[in-house]
């Protein structure tokens, strides 16, 4: 068809132009369609609110009609004055119009790498957050859902890491407005998501594009067409696959007996001195509440079972869209009540949204959006204690004693003195309330044919309260109850003006140019108070003045601003040779006086090979496009004021038992602080076979980040720890491949398959600091877990190598080691570490890079089947080559009999079982050792059944009798299986509780909120 169009251009050259007009309608609904792109000879216009258009063309021109989600249509004018057209819903992706920065483009005209998800695809996987909907959908985009908490907790990385301790999160742009708070957008309001990956696409967002850009388009009304849509779903969670297994009561007591008996072997002197006599379990199993007279346990509690609930969650979404001749609107209301798998955890969201668009004059269109969200949730996993105690609660304790009081590990002599997990769940609160008001208004002015000016004013106002309280009964250090209130507000506004020019210089050349400027400002203010010692648990955080001890209070304010100028030229010749050039100048307040502004250019070329004569008639290849791009983007996500020298007024001295505020050293100045930059090259190919039944898209990329922003260490003799400066460089290189295939397609039955795979390799090329960087971006557990070293992937896991357990045969060799267990000699049954430097001492010098949390490859395989009105989706996700570093191993396996353990300790080393990797059981006071080592590191490769969805649409003949356009019923089973190495305890896709802030925390396991299997039923009605 394009070929026909091209030849028509040639014929149409040098002919008189006349006006053509008409109306574009949806073939299904017969309604006029607004915003349809009508193109001829390189010029384009859009249909107005009722679907009509007019433009001047030659008598032999060919009109191309295109709109998001519809098949494009090309119609020769043939000297007609009126050309009306019906558009069919699209079945191929090629004709889709996709959103790019500051504009839209047909997918076939793209020169860059842009991933796109349509509303229909989004619907297949109902989720409470945008990121969860994205997981596995787009190659090159790694989305990890790291917690089973309602609302989830996700990490998104586009093509690996670009930064050390600046942000690695992508930029989110909602309806053209950059935002920092997409977490609160209502997923049902979204009509499409585009992800800009290569530099040609992202460079238009210059300074903020280095981590990829996620463009979110929300629903708007359509003129002349009204619809009410109501969606409801209910769901309930059960424990997901591969939950860790813990000792039961009988097993625990057995382990404790063995641990006691082995004291004699591991501390013979202490044993002989009688130091452990009181430790004899027989003497301690006397509490009549817990044991019978023989010392047998009365209870056998499964704490995981006790901590979970299976309550019904519900989600209601109501949307109304409509419009008259020139005006349209959309209204939506939503209510979501997610009840978590873990007791007392919930997330509730209330949202309302209004959009309007008005074609005021033929040259002026205005519109806007107003969104309000209120979200309230109890994050039980904000602190590791409740979830950790599920793992470590002693199994022979009841949840409560018959008198109604809570049990606790501390009730049992010599256990680690911790409290009851269920009590934590009920008596600790971490309430996060977030109100988000987002608004934007725009005007679109057509200055003359082909030239438009768009002005967008966007604002967001976010207020967030973090209110916490802990009951008196949960005092560990004598707090007698505590509460805190932490309130913050962030105001953001942006103002963008940009001109768009569309024209064809001739029928051979066409050009589309955009030039704009932007201002943004964000300011924040926060206040926090915490206090301890309350006379009653009644108040919680609602009357913080009732507390009397240890008041801590503070407030803070900050501001940053951007000023930018940007432009883009899309040039195409014969519609086959496409060129895009973009540039953006960004100025940020955050950088040193000498380096506030920076320039970010990019260029891309594409060649639609399938439009060349030699491929035009090819029966196999229906589409072939080659593209390449290069560009530079930046990263400026550092806190404000980083370049200034400041004193810190946060010191607290105690003088005369009074709190005295102090002012002292703060931050070192760096007037040369400048932008972190990422240069990226990309080569891509798009191939359609057999009339696009099979569509393949592949990309190769290389990204190099230079001038990385880092809190670089300085000599501590200065009194300062770090200076924020630009150091070193890092690369990411990778391959992405997506295959879409319509395997079977006939009237009754269709089968479609989508497969994607992404591979990314990261390497630190140089560091301006002389040494490795440790303690940045990961966690400081027993030792820092992550290291940044030249030549290695950024944020690699770091630890000792566990060779095994010293055997009886190695007794003499073991004894040569300086003690690494409480000063007692190393014996057979103790952990054998690799002594890398051969000094017979296990120290930090023996620690090495042992793994990495990033996968070698990841992706998804989605199969969709439809049979008449039935639909079935099987959505699988996978990753391989990612390591999991189980920090919970220290307390759940390497030490025993202080708290409950993994069941694996039943297979610990004994003289009869010398091949075990687990040290011989012994009382911890008789000498044991905990180190981050290779035994804690597991292969975290997995295949997950993410979603199994079945839907049935009632026959329209039947529903229309009831006045219903569509009635769809669906059922969904999410996280329904997991294939993972037996050795992994729990879910491998995880970030330990409390570790979320670290850039390299992915794969660090530490008592995360367990991921549920979710059962969902839903109904969707529209009329």
């Amino acid at each position, binding site marked *: 068809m394009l070929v026909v169009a091209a030849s028509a251009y040639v014929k149409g050259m040098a002919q008189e132009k006349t006006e053509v007009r008409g109306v574009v309608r949806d073939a299904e609904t017969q309604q006029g369609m607004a915003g349809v792109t009508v193109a001829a000879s390189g010029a384009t216009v859009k249909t107005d609110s009722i679907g009509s258009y007019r433009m001047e063309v030659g008598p032999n021109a060919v009109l191309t009609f295109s709109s998001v989600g519809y098949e494009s249509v090309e119609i020769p004018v043939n000297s007609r004055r009126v050309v009306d057209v019906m558009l069919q819903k699209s079945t191929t992706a090629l004709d889709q119009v996709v959103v790019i920065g500051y504009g839209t483009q047909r997918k076939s005209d793209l020169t860059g790498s842009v991933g796109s998800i349509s509303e229909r695809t989004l619907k297949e996987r109902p989720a409470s957050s945008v990121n969860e909907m994205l997981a596995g959908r787009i190659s090159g985009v790694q989305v990890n859902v790291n917690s089973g908490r309602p609302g989830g907790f996700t990490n998104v990385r586009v093509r690996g890491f670009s930064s050390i301790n600046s942000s690695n999160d992508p930029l989110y742009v909602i309806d053209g407005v950059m935002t920092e708070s997409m977490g609160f957008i209502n997923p049902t309001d979204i009509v499409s998501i585009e992800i800009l990956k290569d530099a040609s696409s992202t460079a238009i967002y210059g300074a903020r594009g280095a981590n990829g850009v996620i463009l979110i388009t929300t629903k708007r009304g359509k003129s002349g067409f009204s619809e009410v849509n109501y969606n409801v779903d209910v769901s309930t969670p059960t424990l997901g696959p591969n939950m860790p297994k813990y000792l039961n009561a009988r097993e625990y007591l057995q382990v404790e007996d063995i641990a006691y008996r082995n004291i004699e072997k591991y501390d013979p002197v202490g044993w002989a*001195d*009688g*130091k452990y*006599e009181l*430790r004899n379990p027989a003497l301690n199993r006397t509490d009549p509440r817990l044991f019978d007279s023989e010392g047998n346990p009365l209870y056998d509690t499964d704490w995981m079972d006790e901590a979970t609930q299976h309550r019904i969650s519900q989600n209601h979404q109501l949307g109304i869209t409509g419009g008259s001749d020139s005006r349209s609107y959309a209204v939506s209301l939503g209510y979501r009540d997610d009840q978590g798998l873990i007791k007392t955890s919930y997330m509730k969201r209330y949202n309302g949204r209004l959009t309007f668009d008005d074609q005021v*004059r033929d040259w002026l269109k205005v519109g806007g959006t107003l969104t309000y969200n209120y979200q309230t949730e109890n994050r039980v996993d904000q602190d590791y204690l409740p979830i950790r105690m599920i793992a470590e609660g002693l199994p022979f304790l009841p949840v409560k004693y018959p008198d109604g009081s809570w049990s606790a590990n*501390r009730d049992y002599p010599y256990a680690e*003195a911790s409290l009851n997990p269920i009590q934590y769940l009920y008596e600790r609160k971490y309430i996060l309330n977030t109100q988000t008001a987002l608004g934007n208004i725009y*005007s679109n*002015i*057509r200055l*003359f*044919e082909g030239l438009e000016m768009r002005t967008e004013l966007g604002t967001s106002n976010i207020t967030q309260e973090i209110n916490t309280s802990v009951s008196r009964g949960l005092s560990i250090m*004598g707090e*007698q109850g505590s509460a805190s209130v932490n309130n913050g507000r962030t105001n953001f506004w942006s*103002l963008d*003006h940009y001109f768009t020019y569309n024209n064809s210089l001739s029928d051979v050349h066409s050009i589309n140019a955009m030039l704009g*400027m932007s*201002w943004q400002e964000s300011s924040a203010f926060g206040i926090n108070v915490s206090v301890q010692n309350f006379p009653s648990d009644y108040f919680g955080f609602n009357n913080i003045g009732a507390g009397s*001890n*240890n008041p801590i209070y503070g407030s803070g*304010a900050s501001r940053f601003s951007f000023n930018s100028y940007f432009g883009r030229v899309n040039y195409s010749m014969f519609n086959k040779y496409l060129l895009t050039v973009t540039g953006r100048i960004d100025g*940020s*307040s955050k950088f040193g006086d000498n380096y506030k502004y920076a320039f970010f250019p990019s260029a891309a070329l594409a060649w639609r090979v399938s439009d060349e004569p030699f491929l035009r008639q090819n029966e196999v290849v229906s589409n072939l496009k080659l593209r390449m791009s290069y560009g530079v983007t930046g990263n400026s996500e550092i806190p404000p*004021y980083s370049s200034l*020298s400041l*004193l*810190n*007024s946060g010191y607290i001295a*105690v003088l005369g*038992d009074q709190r*005295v*505020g*102090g*002012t002292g*050293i703060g*931050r*070192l100045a*760096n007037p040369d602080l400048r932008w972190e930059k990422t240069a990226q090259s990309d080569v891509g190919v798009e191939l359609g076979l057999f009339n696009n039944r099979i569509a393949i898209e592949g990309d190769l990329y290389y990204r190099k980040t230079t001038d990385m922003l880092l809190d670089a260490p*300085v*000599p*501590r*003799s*200065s*009194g*300062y720890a770090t*200076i924020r400066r630009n150091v070193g460089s890092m690369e990411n290189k990778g391959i992405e491949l997506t295959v879409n295939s319509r395997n079977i397609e006939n009237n009754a039955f269709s089968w479609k398959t989508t497969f994607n795979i992404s591979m990314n390799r990261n390497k630190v090329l140089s560091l301006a600091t*002389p*040494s490795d960087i440790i303690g940045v971006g990961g966690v400081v557990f*027993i*030792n820092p877990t992550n290291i940044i070293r030249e030549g290695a992937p950024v944020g690699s896991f770091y630890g000792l190598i566990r060779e095994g357990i010293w055997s009886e045969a190695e007794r003499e060799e073991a004894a040569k080691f*300086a003690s*690494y267990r*409480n*000063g007692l000699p190393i014996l057979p049954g103790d952990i054998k570490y690799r002594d890398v430097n051969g000094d017979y*001492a296990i*120290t930090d010098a023996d620690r090495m890079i042992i793994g990495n949390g990033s996968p070698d490859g990841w992706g998804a395989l989605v199969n969709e089947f439809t049979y008449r009105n039935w639909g079935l989706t099987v959505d699988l996700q996978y990753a391989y080559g990612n390591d999991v570093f189980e920090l919970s191993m220290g307390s759940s396996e390497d*030490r025993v009999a202080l708290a409950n353990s993994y069941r694996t300790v039943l297979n610990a080393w004994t003289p009869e079982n010398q091949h075990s990797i687990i040290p011989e059981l012994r009382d*911890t006071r008789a000498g044991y050792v*905990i180190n981050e080592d290779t035994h804690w590191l597991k292969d975290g490769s997995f295949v997950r059944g993410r979603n199994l969805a079945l839907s049935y649409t009632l026959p329209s003949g039947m529903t229309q009798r009831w006045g219903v356009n569509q009635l769809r019923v669906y059922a969904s089973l999410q996280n329904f299986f997991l294939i993972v190495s037996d050795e992994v305890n729990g879910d491998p896709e995880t970030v330990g509780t409390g570790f979320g802030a670290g850039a390299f925390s992915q794969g660090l396991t530490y008592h995360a909120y367990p991921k549920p299997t979710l059962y969902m039923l839903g109904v969707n009605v529209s009329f």
Partner: protein
Amino acid sequence: MKFFSSRSTVIAVLTVCCGLSIWGCSGFLKEVDPTNLTKESFFTIPEHAESAIAAVYADTRFIGDYAGSFSANWQLLEALTGTSTTESAENASLNNLYSLVHDGNNRHIVNWWNGLYRVIAQANLVIENVPNISPMDEEQRSKIMGEAYFLRAWAYFYAVRLWGDIPLITKPQNAGSDDFFPQRTSIEEVYALIVNDLVNAESAGLPWMDKSGRVSLAAVKSQLAMVYLTMAGYPLNKGNAYYQLAAEKSGEVITYARANPGILNLFGDYSAFRDPSRKNELEQIFMIQFHGSIVPNMQGLFTRPNFKPVSVTNTGVGTTVPTLDFYNSFADDDLRKKDKTGFFYTSYYTNGSGALFSLGGPYIFKFFNTIANGAPGQTGTGVDDLNIHQIRFAEVLLVFAEATNESTGISDDAYEALTRIRTRAGLTTAARNSFSKETFREAIWKERWHELCYEGITWFDMVRLRKVYNERTDRFDDFVGHVNLSSNQTLKDRHLLLPLPTLEMSDNPNLRPQNPGY
């Protein structure tokens, strides 16, 4: 070119101009931090001096800060002595100190380096800027300067004893400072600064004692006496003249105490160490300040037994617990050994206030806060208000006795100083004339080991004397070759100094060489 409407053009131009007007504000990208001061806007009024000296005090608390799980920084100075051991192996850094295999990556060592230089930097800020505040009451200015000089000397005294030659930084730093990447300065020069700072502080008009916990004249003089005593021994070996200086300086404190026994004296018994109401008074000359409702002291957590119910909070990790050998080296009738009376306890009340139970061995009672943990008939509050000990009058007495004995031989006053310590412990002391200079010397050393245990002092005695108390022979071994009974590891030459932190050496290429043996 056909315009749609002239109005469209007008509106477009207006909108763009409106945008450009923002650009017109040249300050749009300028930043001013509303929450932090700059040096230019600070140090203008006397209150700023008070605020700045408070930051120095705040940073002295690093000694009590965490050094990884189950451990705090102060434990560095105990783990190396061999007088204590641990009931938990969760902290690899602490394990390595106990086993004497620590290296420059050791977390405790790194924390001490960072913590001390931070105190020094804060003090430098005061010393550099407070003289320029005008107008300011001269008496107030002088006292604050005196406190800053003392605290800088206090930090350098620790650092020079731990690492030997160290960077000597006396001015506030910025990234362009000449000594931002300093070399090591000789021990001799570091001590010269310490003495100079303390002499400056001595004439600053500080009160003899200060109940608020600020630096007092008694603290300055006592610290100076200890500095002289250390300079007399290893590694400077300045000998007799410095023993004499130490005797004179500690003598001044003792003379004042004799004249003002209600202000400066020994406590009558050891329970006062555990009483939060008796902080910073009488015997307590200088302490690191804590307060339960502001910043609580965590020392008890690390010294209480590993998860034995001796406290209402029922937490204790037992990472500094006495070795049996050291406990047994106290005489049986020594009150300091008496259960729940002196420095140790071997039994306590369940959850602080319940039934008495045996602990199966000795634990440190010296800083056991009965108000926080509980006592019979009294449920604990869980909140520990105690301070961390730094300088006690008992140590001043022992410094005086030792310095006098070394410089001029045993005297009545020196003998009395020793016997006061022993008498309080319920011990009798051999007659004065039964001591020779040598036996008196060892008697003082031994008393130091026993009286000053677990207060961060013993390690520096080991280094200064190059002698270590052998708990089994009741005599003194040479440092090199002594076996720490806590881990059966032998002290070697290299242990006399700590390794420089590895990261510090790589961040500062001028900081070399590493101390021998590391």
